[in-house]
């Protein structure tokens, strides 16, 4: 895609499109930041300013002192890490198969992978809860991570499939010819080349789990993840504390996604430079 030149009609449409999207994403983040750092006055002030009148870390500090926040954060990290590992361990082989082998129903398989995301979690919630209670997974970070793995798996498979497809088959064949078994060739040649992209897929799985709130809320009572915990705790607290909580939730996702944006663009077919 070529960038339209500035000044032309196309340029204007392009520019305003970019502007709308930026506002769409940045405005809520800005407002949350304003509330988190500006405290009560910034939340209720109207018209809003770009920068809070008085900057303070009080609400963030108070928020971090709330009972159970650290435990919830730990649960979140635990669930997200488990999700990351499981999604990759299951997703990467699927991705490799999709990239390297032509088998009957490959296209259908590809479609089905994505269709798993079309199945509403709300319908699954009740049977899952019953099942989890029965097998003893209820109210554990591991139980939550199982559901999150199901959510992240399609993306892990699709991202790794495009990664592996981008590594020429000849490189693997050369490795075989020069003495590698299939597994050795994968470890010595494919993996090093795919590693940055695999890291991106892992981080993406982490973020999916970190952000997920519905399943986490339904499947835990005591051992809540941060999102689920905040949903219950903050619904009764003053607005600026909610903003502080929201801010802390957003930051890791934004940082991670920013770090791996190149690979996500590649996944979505946007040319990256």
């Amino acid at each position, binding site marked *: 895609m070529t960038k339209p030149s500035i000044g032309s009609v196309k340029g204007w449409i392009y520019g305003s499109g970019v502007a709308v999207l930026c506002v769409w994403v940045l405005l809520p983040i800005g407002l949350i930041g304003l509330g988190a750092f500006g405290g009560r006055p910034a939340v209720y002030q109207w018209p809003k300013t770009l920068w809070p009148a008085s900057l303070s870390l009080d609400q963030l500090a108070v928020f971090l002192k709330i009972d159970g926040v650290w435990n919830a954060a730990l649960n979140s990290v635990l669930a997200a890490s488990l999700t990351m590992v499981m999604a990759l361990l299951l997703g990467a082989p699927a991705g490799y198969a999709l990239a390297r082998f032509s088998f009957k129903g490959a296209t259908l398989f590809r479609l089905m992978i994505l269709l798993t995301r079309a199945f509403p979690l709300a319908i699954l919630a009740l049977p899952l809860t019953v099942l989890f209670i029965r097998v003893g997974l209820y109210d554990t970070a591991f139980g939550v991570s199982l559901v999150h793995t199901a959510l992240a798996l399609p993306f892990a498979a699709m991202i790794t499939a495009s990664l592996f497809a981008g590594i020429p088959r000849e490189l693997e*064949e050369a490795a075989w*010819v020069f003495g590698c078994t299939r597994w050795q060739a994968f470890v010595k*040649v494919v993996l090093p080349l795919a590693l940055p992209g695999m890291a991106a897929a892992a981080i993406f799985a982490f973020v999916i789990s970190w952000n997920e709130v519905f399943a986490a809320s339904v499947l835990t009572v005591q051992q809540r993840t941060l999102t689920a915990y905040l949903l219950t705790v903050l619904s009764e607290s003053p607005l600026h504390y909610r903003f502080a909580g929201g801010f802390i939730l957003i930051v890791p996702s934004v940082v991670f996604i920013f770090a791996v944006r190149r690979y996500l663009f590649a996944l979505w077919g946007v040319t990256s430079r």
Partner: protein
Amino acid sequence: MAAITIEGVSKRFGAAMALEHLDLTVTDGEFVALLGPSGCGKTTLLRIIAGLETRSSGRVLIGDQDVSDLPPAKRGLAMVFQNYAVFPHLTVFENVAFGLRMQKRDEATIQRQVKRAADLLQIGPYLDRYPAKLSGGQRQRVAVARALAVEPAVLLMDEPLSNLDALLRLEMRAELKSVLKEAGTTTLYVTHDQTEAMGLADRIAVMYKGVIEQIDTPTRIYSKPSSTFVGGFVGSPPMNFLSMTASAGRLACAGFSMPLAHEGPVLLGFRGEDVALVKADQGLGFEVRVIEPMGSHLLLTGMVKGERVRVVAAPQAEIERGMTLGLQLDAARVVVMDTQTGKAL
């Protein structure tokens, strides 16, 4: 060092026959080129020998060992790929050393063999670089060095020069020939470029539609093709074929006669440079339609009894469009083909 023997190898892709019961022997230390148009099965054959493709039937032997069911790693061969397939995450040194490291050779041997291969291919100065910093020609050298470093029994090359530009290709061709002669490795070389095959190979196997049409020295492939396909595919301009009729044990036309133990219609094949241009009444009447000055010679295209013929004339010959000349054929330098099968009689 080892010979390659292929016995009755066939390959089917669904209903399509890619290779049909193919036999081929490459003797120890020999350089054989597999030459053919794209889709003739030459790369498939090479990949079957390497173990990268499964065969439908037949056997592949390297030396005395049947390697048909061994994985590529166990076949004791090396390969140079069309797009080089140099590992981008390894330095040139590690690329060349890759096969040796897989064989678990000691460090001193690795250093020595890599250095020797690198010297042979003149990539010594780049050993610490990554392939991304190299040109196409240099990468190809790395790929060849990687293959020679393991001192393979058999070297397979899949159109190794086709991604290089014309001048570099000419240079690499001459270099490859001297390097491989020195190494004395049994080599099977796939190409669709006849000049490459002619220039490099001890023997050429011309493939067409999954079978080997002819396997012989470059000279004999050129002058004594075994079928109309080989005559038409090898050489520029391609071989000319005239429809004639043999009778009473002879094949004869104006100014030409040769004994032939065949009756009825045949095709007479001759190379454009194997005819003498004489006066119109002394040979086959040749009406000049197009004259192309090629520098070293003139390429004449014209008609002989309604059939298109291309002949080569001296660059200073005084020939004009529309002239009728005589073609005098040399019985020792013609081939006679069966009209029906296209095979030499």
